[in-house]
């Protein structure tokens, strides 16, 4: 099957000498739900900017559904819908006009564009606001407007750069559902996000970029299988925390909270057995952090990379 996106040897050096991309290779299969993760300044937005021709590349090749952006830029663009990180629509236009104009740029006739605008505004719960000026919308509504806009020409690939940033959890979950439905319809989705839970829940394949280099590129299951230790937090009956657990590394947080590191070869049942032996009652239990987050932090150097220069992110 043809790749939806194939990137090879992609490099970008900005004026001033900052090297945002140091030669990345990436392939996204058709129909995939793909996560591109990385700390601030890692090169995610630069990569997306190059695919969308908003950033001029220094070297390398980008092929979209078999069309090289150096030779067939306009054809390549027609396959892609993009939801950028920052709001980039005319704040003074109505939602309907923004969508219909955008469709026009892709050659969609006005009559058909109006029908599609109605469809997507209704699906994204924005129909009541269709004649309002875009500046009147809340942050979450603006994000949904950008998703509707990206779909107006019915692209085969949707690129979303931090689509749920600043969106409340309820809305985030409804957006996840909407994106899942789009993917089930056959649209290839590439997602960058800071919410690693989001990537873990939605994406089948993942690439992690750090300081302009791809440090991991695999499927989500294989990546999560690499996780050697998970930390669980146990909420115990007050004043009943154990001093130590045999075979487990553990920490007492307060008089009713215990953190236990569980290695891949160990079971949680064994933790419960140990606690039972000491007569300790467990009220509840949860993961200390998202599994992908633990891996991510390990891969990008214990979070140190996040403090690096963030010129273009």
């Amino acid at each position: 099957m043809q790749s939806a996106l194939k990137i090879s040897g992609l490099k970008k050096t900005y004026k001033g000498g900052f090297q945002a991309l140091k030669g990345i290779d990436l392939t996204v299969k058709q129909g995939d739900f793909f996560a591109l993760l990385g700390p601030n300044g890692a090169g995610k937005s630069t990569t997306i900017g190059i695919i969308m021709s908003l950033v001029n590349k220094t070297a390398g090749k980008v092929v979209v559904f078999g069309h090289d952006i150096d030779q067939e830029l306009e054809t390549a663009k027609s396959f892609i819908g993009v939801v950028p990180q920052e709001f980039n629509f005319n704040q003074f236009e109505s939602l309907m006009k923004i969508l219909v104009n955008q469709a026009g740029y892709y050659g969609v006739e006005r009559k058909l564009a109006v029908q599609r605008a109605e469809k997507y505004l209704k699906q994204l719960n924005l129909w009541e606001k269709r004649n309002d000026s875009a500046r009147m919308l809340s942050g979450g509504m603006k994000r949904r407007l950008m998703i509707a806009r990206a779909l107006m020409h019915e692209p085969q690939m949707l690129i979303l750069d931090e689509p749920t940033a600043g969106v409340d959890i309820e809305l985030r979950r409804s957006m996840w559902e909407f994106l899942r439905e789009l993917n089930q319809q056959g649209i290839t989705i590439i997602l960058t996000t800071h919410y690693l839970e989001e990537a873990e829940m939605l994406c089948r394949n993942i690439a992690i970029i750090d300081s302009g280099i791809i440090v991991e590129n695999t499927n989500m299951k294989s990546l999560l299988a690499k996780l050697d230790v998970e930390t669980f937090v146990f909420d115990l009956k007050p004043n009943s925390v154990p001093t130590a657990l045999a075979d487990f590394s553990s920490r007492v947080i307060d008089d009713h909270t215990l953190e236990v590191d569980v290695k891949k070869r160990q079971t949680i049942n064994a933790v419960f057995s140990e606690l039972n032996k000491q007569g300790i009652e467990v009220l509840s239990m949860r993961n200390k952090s998202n599994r992908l987050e633990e891996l991510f932090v390990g891969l990008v150097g214990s979070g140190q990379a996040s403090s690096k220069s963030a010129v273009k992110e």
Partner: protein
Amino acid sequence: MASSRNIIALKSILHKEIHRFMRIWVQTLVPPAITISLYFVIFGSLIGSRIGEMGGFDYMSFIVPGLIMMTVITNSYSNVASSFFSAKWQRNVEEMLVAPVPNWVIVAGYVGGGMARGMLVGGIVTFVSMFFVDIQIHNIWVIITTVALTSATFALGGLINAIFAGSFDDISIIPTFILTPLTYLGGVFYSISLLPDFWQGISQINPIVYMVSAFRYGFLGISDVSLALSFSVLGVFIVSLYTVAMVLITKGIGLRS
């Protein structure tokens, strides 16, 4: 396929641009009508009556073509400069840049929008002029051709200004310090034949002289320079400015990192 897509894209940009200046008509269409009325009251009735004839016509009739042309120039220029810069500033220019819109369509769409405003305002000002003076028309085709070419020239100029502009101040510098002096010294209020030889020579490097002269010929049948030379100058300006605009947009100056 690609050509029909380009036509729809061009229509979309034009529609957006025309809708923009019509939506803010109080800022875009009304002020020129008020300004031109003041010019007629002051220069036509109060001062003009003391000046007498110029080029064989009463002063009021003589300045009408120049005043209309001045309005067309400033409106064509400022429409594109402010609209394109706003699109850059709000980043909604990216809506076009990420879409399969060829660069010539972007240029044509914005220039078309500037021409539409320039010519509409020119029409409004002409209508207002009819309350102050008996408008005579010597050659309607010369009038239409001149106003179309002039508005295209200055719309292209406004686009180039907006591409380079980094702030709203940058789009007012050229109109204030270059466009207005050139317009006032371009024969709007006088015939350049009245100037001493030296200043007549200097005036010939002012492109607005050729535009006002051709436009005045269309109304009154008199001109400071030949019609052929005026149209040639306009043609050279349009081709040169279009080439510059295309190179800038293709390279992504001010638009792409």
